[in-house]
């Protein structure tokens, strides 16, 4: 099909025709087109349906403010709902479909809503759908939901990749229209590092859409020369297709660069890049947005903003109609008439709400001053307008101008409020701008070209001077101050038909009046009740009009009526862009221990432990269930020897003359008198008296300690200790180093642990029971001189050691240990077996140390020394934490030994109903003990230590189980601790 509405001129590249498809029709456009301009070139004006009434809608604007022309772009998993056709750059093979209809765009079954419009007034749904109660979720809401939304997600994972980056500059210039170009040029010439970002693919802003002259030549030529100078400056970065969407604290701006959206496929490149721009100064040159006027049936396809109509003609060489009328309250609207007439488009009428002489002469047009449009005709496109004087004029396009509103959005992102300027009947930036921001050009309310150029240069120079640079005002190019006078006019009150304000959400003037009448009078209430300005365009063309109609209804001025808050983003940003590459396996970093590769070779099953991956168990060929592997690992360890990678435990090196005193303060139990060469279990409280963490600390020399923490709390404990050191006891001579990643550490446990170690520990180190008893430690060498630290500590309850070597030897050590262990049938064991053995020994771990429990609950109350100052000691004495009937950690076993215990079951006295009143505690950890041959558990229960031997019920209603359990000592295995000392 030919592009029958294409006319001469514009900056599209007619040598590069592009094919595209819309609603199944194959069409052609040119490079430089947007989807909207290409559709208009092909005489397609009806492109979508409105949200509530499913009214036919056309292209309304030529920019990011578009409320109507939203399409589904691309196909399959690349499908992109609600894409504004007005900013979608045309590419060869583009596929787009209209949205929000049932049936077809032309015959939309949901259009029946329009007939029921009297019953669907603002907020109608708050007043009905309440009876019968059960019908809301079953009948009403499903129907409402089904008709909600506009576009559709594919439901498939987004296949594109997205990047993020940081940029730093002295001066960020937002918008590359006349003001932005001058600001960037002036700042750039001063030597400042400048970023000039523009959302369009063709910098120039309105210069591309107008027929202005600069320095006596056409404006596009001037734009090209400025761009070429900017490109030549090494300190200036020009970013096209980059929308600065938000202003954040301290000069940080968020920006989205569309890298490949203008290409058929991203081709392995990031589709979009999310930039965080750190600026010292920012100059906002974001231009202005035109707004409409409310009159009867002002929503039909073919009704467009006047500036957009002339943008299509001037920039894209497209006539949006054959027979165009203009409805305006200002001089700018007349430019549309004269520009189109100059291009040979027939102008049927110019209707100006102002009385007086016509500002221009338009050949062949009916001129109606002091008149307005009261209604329009046409079903799927406008066919005529009816004037207030009763005449009807046939048209196929109506260009409306209600004046221009400066794009103040970013000035308000930090909750600044705009001021009202009567001269232009619009909000302009207020006084509370984000720190470092200035505004120039149309965004500041300077709506003429000469003023934009002047202001831009001034703002650029000022920003550079603020930073101590010498900036001379560039010569201000010559341009004229075109006519822009406006007499505010908002609403044709004599219109009988519905007068739309928010096109996308179908909010009409009557809705605004109704909301006001019903008491929703604050702007915020109005917005929420009517949904004005809440659509994908965030009311860019609608909000001021809505305010004006509210003001009119309340008999107040617009500034008295107020304005809602502008919030980021300026235009919508894909969720995937904010996520960048942090998705899938790369959602968060993965930490691997030095022994990981070895474990993987053994076929280990890994489990996430925070950021770490740890071996959970090591299945042998033939083992079909994890329990088989875990039981075997436990039994083999208890019988001979097992080895477990415990590298992930936090390791903190504590050194200094006051190291012992410091530890004495951060641990609840005493550390001052720990001898050199010894390890002690340490219990660490938070200041509120709850258990923070536990671990062991070894004294390697007088002033040198090594602490271990749990894996989960490694970071938090270190941070806390730095707080104690720097903020609480700054005079202590103590220094901390996190050494978690510097050492690989393995537990070697089991009756043959010593024998195994003796094979690799260098012979000059005596690790016999006498020389190296339980809780001993020392610095040794292994395998012929490799430095190592050896701790005789046990989590498993066996004769056990933990051996640490610098990380680079971690892989070598595990291989050496396993080789040495071969004669003892040594097994590697994972976190599951570790957990089974600690439950058998009654050691608390994460499920018990959950931040809600005290030392007393854990049965370790007496460890909290009262002879010294330590973190948490005072607040642990609060009465409710020391109740007679407080919780205590005890062991549990099923009365019927064949039953399995379940973590999370609650304890209910026998014969009582399971209810909150009868709830006495809960099961924290359970395991099948292969050693004992039945299920065992740990848990907290009221007065637990006094109740050993009692039988109670472990109620697990969520899994539909309830079993009798016996309260026992938590030390299931080797309660006297003989094995660890062997």
């Amino acid at each position, binding site marked *: 099909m030919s592009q029958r509405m294409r006319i001469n001129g514009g900056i599209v590249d007619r040598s590069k025709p592009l094919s595209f498809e819309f609603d199944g029709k194959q069409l052609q456009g040119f490079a430089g087109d947007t989807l909207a301009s290409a559709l208009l070139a092909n005489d397609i004006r009806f492109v979508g349906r409105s*949200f509530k009434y499913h009214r036919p809608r056309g292209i309304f604007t030529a920019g990011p403010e578009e409320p109507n022309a939203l399409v589904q772009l691309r196909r399959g998993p690349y*499908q992109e*709902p609600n894409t504004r056709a007005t900013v979608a750059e045309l590419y060869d093979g583009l596929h787009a479909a209209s949205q929000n209809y049932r049936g077809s765009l032309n015959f939309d079954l949901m259009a029946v809503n329009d007939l029921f419009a009297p*019953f669907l007034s603002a907020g109608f749904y*708050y*007043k*009905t759908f*309440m*009876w019968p*109660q059960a019908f*809301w979720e079953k009948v009403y809401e499903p129907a409402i*939901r089904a008709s909600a*939304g*506009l*576009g*559709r*997600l*594919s439901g498939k994972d*987004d296949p594109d990749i997205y990047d993020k980056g940081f940029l730093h500059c002295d001066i960020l210039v937002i918008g590359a229209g006349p003001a932005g170009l001058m600001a960037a040029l002036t700042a750039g010439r001063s030597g400042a590092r400048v970023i000039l970002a523009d959302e369009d693919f063709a910098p120039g802003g309105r210069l591309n859409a107008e027929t202005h002259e600069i320095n006596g030549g056409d404006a596009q030529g001037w734009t090209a020369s400025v761009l070429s100078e900017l490109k030549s400056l090494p300190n200036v970065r020009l970013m096209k297709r980059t929308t600065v969407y938000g202003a954040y*604290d301290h000069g*940080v701006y*968020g920006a989205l660069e569309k890298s490949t959206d203008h290409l058929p496929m991203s081709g392995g490149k990031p589709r979009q890049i999310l930039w965080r721009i750190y600026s010292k100064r920012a100059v906002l040159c974001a231009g202005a947005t035109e707004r409409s006027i409310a009159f009867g049936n002002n929503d039909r396809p073919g009704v467009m903003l006047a500036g957009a109509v002339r943008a299509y003609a001037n920039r894209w060489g497209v006539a949006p109609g054959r027979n165009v009328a203009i409805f305006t309250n200002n001089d700018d609207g007349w430019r549309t008439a004269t520009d189109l007439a100059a291009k040979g488009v027939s102008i049927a009428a110019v209707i100006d709400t102002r009385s007086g002489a016509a500002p221009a002469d338009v050949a062949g047009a009916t001129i109606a001053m002091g008149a307005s449009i009261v209604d329009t005709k046409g079903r799927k496109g406008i066919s005529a307008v009816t004037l207030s004087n009763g005449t009807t004029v046939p048209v196929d396009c109506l260009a409306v101008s209600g004046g221009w509103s400066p794009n103040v959005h970013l000035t308000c992102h930090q909750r600044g409020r705009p001021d009202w300027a009567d001269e232009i009947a619009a909000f302009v930036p207020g006084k509370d701008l984000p720190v470092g921001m200035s505004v120039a050009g149309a965004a500041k309310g300077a709506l003429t070209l000469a003023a934009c150029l002047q202001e831009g240069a001034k703002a650029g120079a000022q920003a550079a001077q603020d930073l101590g640079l010498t900036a001379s005002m560039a010569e201000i190019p010559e341009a004229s101050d075109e006519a822009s006078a406006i007499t505010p006019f908002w609403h044709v009150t004599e219109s009988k038909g519905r007068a739309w304000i928010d096109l996308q959400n179908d909010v009409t003037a009557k809705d605004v009046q*109704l909301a006001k*009448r*019903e*008491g*929703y009078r*604050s702007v*915020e209430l109005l917005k*929420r*009740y009517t949904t004005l300005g809440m659509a994908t365009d965030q009311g860019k063309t609608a909000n001021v009009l809505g305010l004006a109609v509210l003001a009119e209804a309340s008999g107040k001025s617009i500034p008295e009526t107020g304005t809602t*808050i502008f*919030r980021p*983003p300026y235009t*919508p*940003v894909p*969720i*995937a862009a*904010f*996520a960048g590459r942090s*998705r*899938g396996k790369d*959602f*968060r970093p993965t930490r691997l221990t030095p022994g990981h590769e070895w474990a993987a070779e053994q076929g280990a099953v890994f*489990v*996430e432990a925070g950021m770490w991956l740890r071996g959970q168990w090591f299945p042998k060929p033939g083992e079909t269930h994890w329990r088989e592997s875990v039981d075997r690992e436990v039994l083999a360890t208890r019988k001979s020897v097992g080895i477990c990678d415990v590298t992930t435990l936090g390791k903190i090196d504590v050194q200094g003359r006051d190291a012992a005193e410091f530890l004495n303060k951060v641990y609840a139990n005493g550390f001052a008198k720990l001898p050199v060469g010894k390890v002690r279990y340490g219990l660490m409280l938070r*200041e*509120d008296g709850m258990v923070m963490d536990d671990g062991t600390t070894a004294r390697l020399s007088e002033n040198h300690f090594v602490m271990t923490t749990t894996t989960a709390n490694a970071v938090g404990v270190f941070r806390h200790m730095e707080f104690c050191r720097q903020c609480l006891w700054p005079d202590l001579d103590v220094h901390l180093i996190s050494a978690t990643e510097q050492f690989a550490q393995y537990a070697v446990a089991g009756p043959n642990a010593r024998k195994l170690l003796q094979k690799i520990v260098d012979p000059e180190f005596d690790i016999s029971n006498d020389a190296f008893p339980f809780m001993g430690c020392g610095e040794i060498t292994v395998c012929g001189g490799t430095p190592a630290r050896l701790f005789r500590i046990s989590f498993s309850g066996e004769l056990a050691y933990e051996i640490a070597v610098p990380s680079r030897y971690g892989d070598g050590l595990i291989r050496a240990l396993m080789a040495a262990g071969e004669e003892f049938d040594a097994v590697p064991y994972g976190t599951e077996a570790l957990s089974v053995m600690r439950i058998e020994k009654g050691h608390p771990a994460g499920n018990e140390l*959950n*931040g809600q429990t005290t030392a007393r609950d854990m049965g370790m109350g007496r460890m909290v020394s009262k002879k010294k100052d330590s973190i948490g000691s005072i607040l642990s004495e*609060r*009465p*409710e*934490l020391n109740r007679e009937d407080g919780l205590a950690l005890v062991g549990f076993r099923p009365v019927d030994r064949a039953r399995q215990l*379940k973590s999370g079951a*609650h304890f209910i006295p026998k014969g009582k109903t399971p209810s*909150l009143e009868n709830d006495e505690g809960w099961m924290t*950890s359970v395991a099948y003990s292969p050693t004992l041959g039945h299920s065992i558990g740990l848990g907290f229960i009221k007065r637990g230590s006094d109740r050993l031997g009692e039988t109670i019920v472990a109620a*697990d*209603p969520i899994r539909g189980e309830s079993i009798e359990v016996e309260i026992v000592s938590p030390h299931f295995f080797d309660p006297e601790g003989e094995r660890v000392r062997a």
Partner: protein
Amino acid sequence: MRYSGLRVLWEGLTGNKGWQPAWREPEPKKSYDVIVIGGGGHGLATAYYLSNKFGITNVAVLEKGWLGSGNIGRNTTIIRSNYLLPGNEPFYELSMKLWEGLEQDFNYNAMVSQRGVLNLCHTDAQRDAFARRGNSMRLSGADSELLDQDGVRALYPFLDFDNARFPIKGGLLQKRGGSARHDGVAWGYARGADLRGVDIIQNCEVTGFHIENGVCKGVETTKGAISAKKIAVCVAGSSGRVMAQAGMRLPIESHVLQAFVSEGLKPIIPGVITFGAGHFYISQSDKGGLVFGGDIDGYNSYAQRGNLPVVEDVCESGMALMPMIGRARLLRMWGGVMDMSMDGSPFIDKTHIDGLYFNGGWCYGGFKATPASGYCYAHLLAKDEPHPVATEMRLDRFKRGHMIDEKGAGAQPNLH
């Protein structure tokens, strides 16, 4: 005026000319039995229950901005009663029961929708904790179900089950949980209170308290002095500022929480889903927007706006959980100020000043609590004793050592 389908029909046929204001706009009287400070959700609910259930109608609600401009105007609209601790769960379950009959009760469609709330777990320890919590819920009469991975997959096949950094192992489902239309809740309570004669006074900021000999007798406002027998502060987000006027320091910090909404989309996410390996929750509104949020920004703030790191963190979690939302566009982000308390749980209590009552500390879970908060506060104001489900929500609990710390995070508000 009673709202109904018939009324909508009649008004539609007669040009929608008969609709009356949903509430009056009265000037304040000189004195009241009860002044509720704060016309947000909890304040309006308090006034509603005082006037409708406890027979106290000589009540004023003083709101410094517009009605419903508290955090009820800015939240992710989730309702649920899936709490762990005995100090919380019965309270939230009462709230859930009130939600279930709310619309018929106050004759306003707040679109309470029990679409189900699913919390995902990614580790065995999380599953254990969910079992404990789910059982706590059952013991308090709430519903809960523990799902395994297949159960989650059957509900939400679009979650990332195959390539996740933190695999989904299961979830805790509360089918009665869901969402409600937040503004509708505020308006429904306001209208219901107004019908009983409660004066809702907008644009009326409290600037001071009249306290004599340890008794609070009234307030100073931008519309003049107003006296009352009981003054009920209900200004979560501004609690610190308001109570400082009464000379009180609180176990509360003010923090900013951001929330997000996408462009409108055809229905794709039926219920509420929360991620367990990052801070992220999401649902889809009846209008089609994906409504989601995550962690607080983490620093004290009254600025009602946030910064980018949290925005990115939230979207990263969203994409990690359901990579099919990538091409949906984030339309709007906003920040509200939260009363972050020292244990993550709220307060409904008398203060040490006679006649002065305090309701606050809702952290970022206040929306779901709105009905019970209003009901229990009204109970306390009417009877001078706490409602049985709110007996632990006391200001002195830290002094006694009776924290209600669901997360076990301790006395650091930004961790809750």
